[in-house]
């Protein structure tokens, strides 16, 4: 699967993710594809992660968990979330090809974050699908 995203789409994605998610005070939001390539990388400016390794591992992790789901007879899991002492990671699949990775502290409720993510995904889908219609 290949896709091309132009500058306008990327800017739109950045804006949507910033407005809807980063403003909640979360640490970072990374939009990647299922091969682990980084599409949009936003953070609060306070932490410097090796985002490329993180993305590759996130994609691999998601792939591994999806394989586990198949083994137990599930089509997929609706929640992939890792809880840390002070930081947590949530993975959300967007269409079949993309993954939204959110890193956030304990001051943000996961349930509420997921509500916001559901909203922002609608915008992300529209932006990405602009490519496919051309």
């Amino acid at each position, binding site marked *: 699967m290949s896709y091309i995203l132009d500058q306008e789409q990327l800017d739109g994605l950045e804006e949507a993710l910033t407005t809807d998610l980063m403003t909640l005070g979360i640490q970072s939001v990374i939009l990647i594809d299922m*091969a*682990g390539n980084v599409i949009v990388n936003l953070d609060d400016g306070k932490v410097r992660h090796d985002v490329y390794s993180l993305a*590759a591992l996130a994609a*691999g992790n998601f*792939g*591994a968990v999806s*394989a586990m789901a198949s083994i137990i007879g599930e089509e997929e899991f609706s929640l992939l979330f890792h809880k840390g002492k002070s930081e947590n990671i949530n993975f959300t699949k967007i269409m079949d090809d993309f993954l939204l990775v959110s890193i956030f502290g304990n001051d943000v409720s996961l349930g509420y974050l997921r509500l916001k993510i559901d909203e922002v995904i609608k915008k992300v889908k529209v932006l990405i699908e602009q490519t496919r219609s051309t």
Partner: protein
Amino acid sequence: MAFINTKTKEVQVKLVFVGPGRGGKTTNLEYIFSRIRHRIESDMVSIKTQGDRTLFFDFLPFELGAIKGYNVKTQLYTVPGQVKYNATRKLVLKGVDGIVFVADSMVDRRENNISALNNLTENLHFYDIDITDLPLVFQYNKRDLATEGIALLDVETMEKDLNAQLKAPSFTASALKGDNVIPTVKKAISKTIVAIREKLL
């Protein structure tokens, strides 16, 4: 990390197929799986991209049955070969007991073979493993391409590039056609298990 249960008399080892991207690691496992699937229960697990590039690993476990009262279990893994997946590759190498290095015989892949071997050495070092101490077998894959007029490195060159110091057993092969795939993995399993038994028992 090899596991020997002296009570239940089980030996379990982890073998990892390593090498440059698109070199034939997954093809090796797929061939092995096709040959043994009628006698094993588990399926082969592959975590890969839509473009069929290994994303995390391929995994094939099987039991060889009892040998001298020890039940021998083997787990074969491949790693993703692409450079950008190094963090993942390192993860899959954790606890490795033996290596099959699948080198790509195509002329323009010469540098990739060498950097993949260097990368392996580094990643093993991360786990305090010296590559010279680890059971290892080389496979010089894609030899079948010679018949299609594609320029291949000769075996002497590949030996010099990759095996000059390690002096490990090596096999020319075609994973796609299944040539020498089984002898490669048999040698690797045998070398690994014997070494483990020597070390642990």
